[in-house]
């Protein structure tokens, strides 16, 4: 019979560590969903208090992530020494991330109380996003390291599906950072934090395709290029974006069919990687890169509008402005975005190698 330490066996602590790591990712995923909803509700009906439904979801996610990080830390302390040292850096990063994330709550409340309606890019929001990124990245790498042997096996296991939560938390929290650095939603009565429109367009054209391509590639390479996980990650990203940014605005509901056609290039990418593995990896990276203008609908309309259209983007006019800009914008951005997509796959390759080697 296995020896018990502080009520549990080593094996049970190990399971608890894995479960809490996934829950940290789940908490961050909930935070990102609340955050995305919050951005949309600011666009649609200007919530005037700190106690809005989107903030409630957001801070519920923080609570889940916080509780899970505490459990993760105590279970990690009781892991066998070898496993413990393998995850030490990730646990420390997760603790730092959750500390920043939790600290962002009172900071945000203070900001709302003193400066009223805040912009997207504000010091407390940056703290929040930075904390989210640290937590989600630390948890995703912990999950991959912990279940590496299961992930590279030929058949599907529970770990294959749990890694999806980690990958979604990373892509959505990083998208949150990229949105704050590019959307023109940050000027308020007290502060003018809107990015320069030309910088915002250049940044969006490079950063979003790079990110989306990296995450899809990681979704495939983490599971040894098995078909399915990248498609699920990409499709769930589309569903979350649709629920938080499209469905909330009744004027955009007719565009849902158009938006979900985005599943096609995601599946093609997955098929290419699962059939040709690394041979066609870079070519495959072109696809999510070139399609980013569709995946990140509707919010990127606001960024490109600042340079290409100069209209007031009313919620009822978002789709019209987006489609009007398609003709001038898409030919300009498709090549740099495709190159960023290739760079994303190169980056993903390096990350995969690093996580497998250490």
């Amino acid at each position: 019979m296995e020896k018990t330490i502080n009520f549990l066996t080593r094996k049970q602590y190990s399971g608890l560590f894995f479960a809490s790591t996934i829950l940290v990712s789940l908490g961050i995923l909930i935070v990102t969903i609340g955050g995305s909803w919050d951005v949309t509700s600011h666009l649609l009906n200007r919530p005037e208090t700190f106690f809005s439904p989107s903030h409630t979801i957001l801070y519920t996610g923080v609570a889940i992530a916080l509780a899970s990080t505490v459990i993760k830390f105590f279970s990690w302390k009781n892991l066998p020494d070898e496993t413990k040292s393998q995850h030490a850096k990730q646990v420390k990063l997760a603790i730092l991330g959750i500390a920043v994330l939790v600290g962002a709550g009172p900071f945000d409340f203070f900001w709302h109380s003193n400066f009223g309606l805040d912009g997207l890019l504000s010091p407390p929001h940056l703290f929040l996003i930075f904390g989210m990124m640290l937590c989600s990245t630390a948890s995703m790498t912990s999950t991959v390291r912990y279940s590496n042997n299961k992930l590279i096996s030929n058949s599907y296991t529970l770990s294959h599906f749990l890694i999806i939560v980690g990958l979604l938390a990373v892509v959505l929290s990083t998208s949150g950072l990229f949105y704050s650095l590019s959307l023109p939603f940050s000027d308020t009565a007290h502060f003018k934090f809107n990015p320069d429109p030309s910088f915002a367009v250049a940044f969006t054209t490079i950063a979003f395709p790079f990110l989306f391509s990296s995450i899809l590639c990681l979704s495939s390479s983490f599971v040894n290029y098995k078909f399915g996980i990248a498609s699920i990650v990409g499709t769930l990203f589309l569903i979350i974006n649709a629920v938080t940014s499209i469905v909330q605005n009744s004027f955009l509901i007719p565009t849902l069919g158009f938006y979900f056609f985005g599943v096609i290039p995601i599946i093609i990418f997955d098929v290419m990687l699962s059939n040709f593995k690394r041979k066609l990896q870079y070519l495959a990276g072109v696809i999510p890169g070139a399609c980013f203008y569709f995946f990140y609908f509707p919010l990127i309309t606001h960024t490109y509008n600042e340079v290409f259209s100069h209209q007031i983007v009313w919620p009822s006019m978002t789709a019209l402005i987006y489609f009007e800009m398609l003709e001038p914008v898409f030919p300009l951005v498709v090549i740099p975005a495709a190159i960023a997509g290739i760079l994303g796959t190169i980056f993903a390759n390096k990350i995969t190698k690093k996580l497998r080697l250490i």
Partner: protein
Amino acid sequence: MKKLFLYCTIAVSLVAYFSLTLFVLPPSFLEKPELVPQPTLDVNIEKSEINLGESFEIKITSNNIGDPADIQIVSIGFPSLDKIDDIVKITEFDFTQSPHYVLIGDEVGSEYTAGLKTVTAKHPSIEAFSRPVNTGDQYHIDLEITPDSVGEFTIYVKTVILPHYTDLAHYPQSGHLDYQDEYVEVYSVAVSNP
């Protein structure tokens, strides 16, 4: 052979996707008829004459009888006043956003341009607004006014729906123009010494 089939499937799917998203679907969104929202107002003032020191109530109901829109603003201006202070009190409102007080000197939008053209406010006003406003949506705001001097107490009332693309998007559509170059309905109450 299998690989060739796969290459062909990938190529055809990509061509189909880009054809749909770049050429087939966008025109259907670009050709959509423009929405035509149409706001109306119902203003009810309980008294036309009062004595100095007394109060009167004004009840305003806004409606959108046209297509859904993003925002409807009801503006209640007080050209007889320099500042609102305790003279005007909001007793009730059900607009989705908190009313906004405009002070003399504030920069405000003009000519129904939603802030693209601006002027400086020449008298105080209260702006009540809701967003979004669907067809048939009604909102109310009630004010209690206690004038502090004798004479005519004048009130300007107007509503505008944004985005503003046709003359139907504001109410009234003719009559007196205020400093924002926008039409207003003019109401007044005679205030006399007791």
